[in-house]
């Protein structure tokens, strides 16, 4: 609706928040950090994809998934399989008893490429699979659970169990998956060496670009009627059902959306970090992803990005000096967020910083709303919505 004038949107408060994030990620961090640190920020950002999905799924629709690592991992493994096949040319693997297959298969006495690896020779198939594989699994899980009205804690536990199952499966099937070491020693993407500093910098920018695409996709969904239904479903599922909506279909949709975001994040993780292993899939990393989202603010897609960045930066900083203390710090952080500020950083920002901004810029919401009201009263209402982008809430005094 208000997209009719994108320039105007960038001048709105929400637009400025997006610009600030873009400025930070595109200009400030690349200038301030060396390629190694920038690569680490890129890695943190891949988790932001998962966190954005969790905002939609958990924050908005109230579906807590403790297994987002599964979708992150599937996206990552799809990417890693392509890269591994490209790195396993017959020439490069000439010393193996079966040249031309990935090294870990050879160590595990496999003599031919398993059938499900074959399609990953194709880059376009891989790109499709990165989204399709997580989405299909999410659909199957969602269909099985939501049409039977399994929800809440039960759903969370089941997703956690799935994370455990997938980890065990990958570790157990070493010959097909690389086992506990994961898929390592990745070299090139369609002939382009991903290990150089310049490649890492380019990948960082690709990651930022994809992140904004996902942010806008999430924002689009949340601003449509569908977004309102998700919020409504969270509080009054029965009323939504008796307003004529198939609640299960909406839950499946948002769960699949979160899985798609996670899959993209996982694939970028593989590219940026250079390998994929089951440790990024399991229960612990899945719960960490929920913490990124909770700390950033589970109702704010922008907050989720900051949450992922900050928690991961703290994790690196902390575990460089006190590796054994980090899990405790993380646990304390989570408990602290839940108890003290349930809407996370975004909630704090909205409560404490936004009023300051108002005073600083002497914003007069009424004045800058008065003008277009006469022409398009209802579109204005929508901009009222946009006014509080950090939390999907409306200020009581005429939004």
């Amino acid at each position, binding site marked *: 609706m208000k997209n009719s004038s994108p320039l105007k949107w960038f001048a709105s408060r929400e637009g400025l928040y997006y610009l600030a994030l873009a400025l930070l990620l595109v200009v400030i961090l690349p200038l301030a950090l060396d390629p190694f640190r920038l690569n680490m920020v890129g890695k943190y950002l891949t988790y932001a994809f998962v966190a954005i999905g969790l905002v939609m799924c958990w924050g908005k629709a109230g579906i807590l998934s403790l297994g987002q690592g599964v979708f992150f991992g599937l996206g990552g493994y799809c990417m890693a399989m392509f890269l591994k096949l490209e790195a396993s040319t017959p020439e490069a693997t000439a010393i193996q008893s079966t040249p031309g297959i990935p090294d870990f298969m050879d160590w595990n006495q496999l003599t031919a490429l398993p059938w499900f690896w074959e399609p990953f020779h194709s880059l376009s198939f891989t790109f499709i699979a990165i989204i399709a594989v997580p989405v299909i699994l999410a659909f199957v899980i969602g269909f099985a659970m939501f049409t039977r009205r399994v929800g809440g804690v039960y759903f969370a536990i089941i997703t956690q169990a799935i994370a455990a199952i997938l980890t065990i499966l990958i570790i157990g099937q070493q010959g097909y998956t690389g086992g506990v070491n994961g898929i390592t020693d990745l070299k090139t993407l369609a002939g382009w060496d991903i290990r150089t500093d310049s490649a890492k910098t380019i990948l960082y920018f690709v990651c930022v670009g994809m992140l904004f695409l996902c942010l806008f996709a999430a924002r689009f969904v949340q601003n449509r009627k569908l977004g*309102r239904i998700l919020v*409504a479903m969270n509080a009054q599922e029965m*009323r939504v059902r008796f*307003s*004529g*909506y198939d609640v299960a279909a909406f839950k499946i949709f948002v769960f699949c959306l979160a899985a798609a975001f996670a899959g993209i994040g996982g694939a970028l993780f593989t590219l940026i970090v250079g390998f994929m292993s089951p440790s990024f899939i399991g229960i612990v990393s899945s719960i960490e992803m929920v913490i990124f989202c909770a700390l950033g603010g589970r109702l704010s897609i922008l907050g989720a990005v900051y949450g992922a960045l900050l928690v991961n930066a703290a994790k690196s900083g902390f575990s460089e000096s006190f590796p054994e203390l980090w899990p405790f710090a993380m646990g304390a952080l989570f408990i602290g967020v839940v108890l003290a500020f349930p809407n996370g950083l975004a909630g704090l920002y909205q409560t404490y910083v936004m009023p300051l901004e108002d005073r600083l810029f002497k914003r007069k919401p009424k004045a800058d709303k008065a003008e277009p009201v006469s022409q398009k009263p209802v579109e204005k209402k*929508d901009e009222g919505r946009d006014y509080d982008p950090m939390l999907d809430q409306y200020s*009581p005094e005429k939004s």
Partner: protein
Amino acid sequence: MNAAKTTSKDFLLAVEGLTVSFDGFKAVDDLSFYLDPKEIRVIIGPNGAGKTTVLDLICGKTKATSGSIKFAGKELTRLKEHQIVHSGVGRKFQTPSVFEDLTVFENLEVSYPQGHSVMGALAFKRDAQVIEAVEEVAETIFLSDALDQPASLLSHGQKQWLEIGMLLIQKPDLLMLDEPVAGMSVAERQKTAELLRRITKDHTVLVIEHDMQFVGDIADRVTVMHQGKVLSEGSIEHVKSDPKVIEVYLGH
């Protein structure tokens, strides 16, 4: 949704032999009753008589153990809740259930009968038609001035009206209201009676209510339920003078 063109001879709703058993306890036991189009029927009865369960069964919230519910010739017992809504049955719950995080406008908009599929909800646009429908309903339910307010700021009575409005905007053929005036102030009660009288001009309405004064005000016919069964049925005078009803419900 208004596919059924019922003639005046046809029943809009025919409930026959309806039974639901919870672990052997029959909350509704071989119940039958019929609603004419445009009729206003009130169900009364002591607590635990199964009144709310009957509404639950009709709207699909509870699945019947046996029996049939035919709405405009369509069997409802095998449909899912949202399909029943699409067939033209609207249900208001006893405690007001509105979307507190959304504005009054958005509450009504979400209930507007369009864009109910996932893709539909993604493509849904707030066009002039929607705005008109919302404003019209808002006027009916006395909430024209509150359209931009979050529903959480409404009073109890206003929430009840909003929920009725959310049903009205669905344009249902049958409206089911569970104790619409419970917990309302006297003023709100009068306004609600007025609202219901206005609604009932062009809807078939099934109401559960305890307030006999209110029942007398609005009902065409009254069904008295007791222990999951119909105890008595007819005009308010008929029911009031029925010794069985006096015995179990109205008191001497």
